[in-house]
């Protein structure tokens, strides 16, 4: 597991303007710079916030990254997502 590397990548997207732009332009290329396993790479490239949270990434960090990518105007979607059935399914899958 390389959860630390996933959080490193997310934090760079959140805090570094250049990395944020690189991620938005080509997430797969951005993800190449981090020592992630296949599942982590996919959740980063896909911007799959639910998978990231279920995997153990800090939920505050995940939220801020999502907001930095999609903007505050779309925030209601994040809100609905983390409170929806897919979030529970992701957590259940993780536990299972």
């Amino acid at each position, binding site marked *: 597991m390389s959860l*630390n590397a996933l*959080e*490193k990548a997310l*934090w760079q997207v*959140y*805090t570094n*303007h250049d990395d944020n732009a690189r991620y938005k332009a080509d997430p797969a290329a951005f993800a190449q710079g981090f020592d992630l396993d296949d599942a982590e790479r996919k959740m980063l490239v896909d911007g799959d916030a639910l998978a990231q*949270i279920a995997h153990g990434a*800090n*939920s*505050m*960090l*995940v*939220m*801020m990254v999502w907001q930095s990518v999609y903007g*505050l105007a779309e925030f209601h979607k994040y*809100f609905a997502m*983390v*409170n929806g059935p897919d*979030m*529970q399914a992701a*957590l259940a899958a993780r536990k299972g």
Partner: protein
Amino acid sequence: MAQLVGGFLMPHLPTIPSGQLLEDGELKDRVYGAFDKITQRLKDLEVDTVIIIGDDHYESFGPHCIPTCLVVTGDINVSDHVELLGMPKGLIPNNPELAQHIVQTGHDEGIDWAFAKYLGVDHSIAVPYTMTAKKIPGVKVVPVYLNDVIMPVIRSSRAAELGRSIRRAIDSFPGDERVAIFGTGGISHWVGGPGMGNINEEFDRKIMKMVEEGDLEGLIALPDREVFEQAGNGAIEIKNWICAMAAVPEAQGLTIAYEPVPAWITGCGFSELKLAA
């Protein structure tokens, strides 16, 4: 010697200064009114320096370095994110001598403070400052960070020990500085994960009552797991309150306001830790 003249507890939500998302004008007035009362009390108490206890939101610190407890001893800037929130760029007036004295006092007592010789602070420091002390010319700030966000978070008993050490530092600081301490954040809110949007008003009012009763030991005894489950990951910020309360154990807790604010997904509590005149 310097004197601790009072303490205050308040939220630090990033949307507070702009009022963003909160369309209920009356509610907004009540929230802003609570900050205005704190500002007036700072004026009444002729405060020179405010020690603000906050917690970084994976912003000024990151996976590369997560200090459990830290004092900013030098220049205080605001973070890039705080700028995006509409708070002005530029230095916040600091008190490096008192900040350094807090670090040294702790060091002499066996408390290994981390310290930052400059820092771009996040909203946990910038918002309380902007809403209160900034409105009083000449008031300086000492930012103190506790890790309430990234596991393992600081122990509540340690947060209290830090508060007591800060008090001893103030009491032994040469000069006639008049100091107030802020405990910021909370109360119930779920940030980023399942439950986001919930407010546990019953839990919040219990915390406000414990503050009124000066039940510091009761707050310290609250298990982190229980706080997480009942009031969300954001409620762990009551450790900042614990730190501030421990610095003024003789104070009377007076509720200024409690407002559940759904638009800000948070129960907002305001208290004064009032010392006898």
